[in-house]
């Protein structure tokens, strides 16, 4: 496998979606190519950091306000009458 091919298959390698033959070829390439190992490791670290830090939530005070507003609308909204 070449560096170009490794780059093409990188996401599928990370997600373990490559077939066995391509997985072995990727592993063999990675064992001998420092640059591709760096790209793999730093791509995995990029994904890890976003997964860890990306869990933003609605700020607490505004979340409660939004809850109250939506709850009032929800409870006041009338169900459609059953069709006759």
């Amino acid at each position, binding site marked *: 496998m070449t560096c170009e091919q490794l780059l093409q298959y990188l996401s599928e390698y990370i997600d373990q979606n490559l077939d066995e033959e391509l997985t072995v070829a990727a592993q063999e390439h990675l064992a001998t190519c420092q640059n591709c190992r760096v790209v793999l*490791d730093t791509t995995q670290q990029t994904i890890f950091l976003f997964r860890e830090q990306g869990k*933003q*939530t609605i700020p607490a005070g505004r*979340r409660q306000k*939004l*809850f109250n507003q939506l709850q009032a609308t929800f409870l006041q909204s009338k169900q459609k009458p059953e069709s006759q």
Partner: protein
Amino acid sequence: MKTYSESELITALRQRDADAFAFLFENYSDRIYRLAAGLLGDEMAAEGVVQESFMRLFERLDQFEGRSKISTWLYRVAYNAAIDQLRKRRPIISLDLEVEDEDLPQPVILIDWQHVPERLLTEAEIKTELDRAIAELPEKYRVVFILREIEGLSTKEASAITGMSTNLVKVRLHRARLILREKLAESLIQYA
């Protein structure tokens, strides 16, 4: 808090059950907020999208047939609402559904920074770098990255929400990862 299956939740919501609303809000508000905030880069506008999405669900409760999951439905409504807002700000945004035919982004910075963040940066500093990197990502890649990596959805779910084919979701996720890796490398190698 009381828990519900999808069908129990829809039935209870139709009866305007307060516990069902609390469960709905608790489980879905932050998820669609993250998608909207990620696309719009504006917390207040993202809250508006959350509000609009829930209101749309309330209006459609009686017609909701359960063909898609509530989460998929809400994400899709929030995605469309956020895109509408983006188009008002900037009439031309590229979200085309065509298969990408450009070359892959090539890695340029090949310095190993993977152990840098824990050692030298505070959590807030890392967060700033991540926010900056994702904000610079084109929307068509950003939405896929948020849905797949941050929200943890499957390729199929991301496809159902965005209208992109599953193949296009995979291609754009791959590009998003490579672009973000490069952007983080640019900002983090200074600490290596």
